[in-house]
């Protein structure tokens, strides 16, 4: 009886999510549903509805979201924060701090979002070898970026318009982390090894750090 109730709740949650967030006209998801008019802006937030382990979306809608994101947001260095077709789109990250902050979420490319995009792509394409090869192709432009801006690092953001000039911090941890995770998990199909015990283990680097703190 409890199991039946859980299944029922799950089905209702799936139905509700798709009913409220599904944008049938554009074939993707609304960005914001909050009582007022639904926000149809094409933004990368919807990629997480596909990439997360437990997705609310049926496969055909997931593929439709992927197609829309690829068409409007994908660049060689990450996903734009807003589609260029939007009236509020800003393709250049220039000017003073106020002007730059105004562009930050209005078209600027975020490299870390390539991580969930690639996870979602490999997932909806059945984790085939072909899908993994395509994922690697999408990640490869970032290799050339390692020799510009912060050498050996990945920048925080890139301009939304070509040639996608690198901007923001020259070495952004979340950019590096998500690209590495996508290579490990989605291109090479590796998963982190679970620790043998529940207690966190002290890493070698941590030990070195503590040694430096107590010379």
């Amino acid at each position, binding site marked *: 009886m409890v199991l039946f109730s859980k299944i029922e709740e799950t089905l209702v949650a799936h139905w509700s999510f798709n009913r409220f967030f599904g944008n049938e006209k554009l074939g993707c998801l609304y960005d914001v549903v909050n009582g007022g008019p639904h926000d149809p802006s094409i933004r990368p937030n919807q990629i997480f509805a596909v990439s997360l382990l437990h997705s609310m979306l049926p496969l055909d809608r997931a593929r439709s979201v992927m197609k829309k994101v690829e068409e409007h947001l994908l660049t060689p260095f990450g996903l734009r924060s807003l589609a260029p077709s939007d009236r509020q789109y800003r393709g250049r990250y220039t000017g003073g701090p106020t002007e730059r*902050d105004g562009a930050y979420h209005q078209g600027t490319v975020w490299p870390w979002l390539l991580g969930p995009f690639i996870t979602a792509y490999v997932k909806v394409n059945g984790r085939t070898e072909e899908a993994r090869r395509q994922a690697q192709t999408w990640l490869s432009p970032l290799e050339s970026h390692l*020799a*510009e801006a912060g050498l050996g690092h990945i920048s*925080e953001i890139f301009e939304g318009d070509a040639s996608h000039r690198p901007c*923001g*911090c020259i070495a952004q941890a979340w950019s590096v982390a998500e690209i590495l995770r996508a290579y490990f998990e989605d291109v090479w199909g590796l998963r982190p090894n679970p620790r043998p015990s529940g207690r966190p283990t002290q890493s070698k680097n941590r030990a070195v750090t503590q040694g430096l703190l107590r010379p």
Partner: protein
Amino acid sequence: MIQFKRETCGDLEAALSREWLETNGLGGYASSTIIGLNTRRLPRSSGGRH
């Protein structure tokens, strides 16, 4: 290893847009451009802007 030749090092704009960063894991760092011309007076932070 990343290497740059005369066409990059001799082009001021290209050289200044390539920077090295060495960190010590404790919050300390050293940083400059590939031609040793320092372009930053203060560390730039983007904390809290996401």
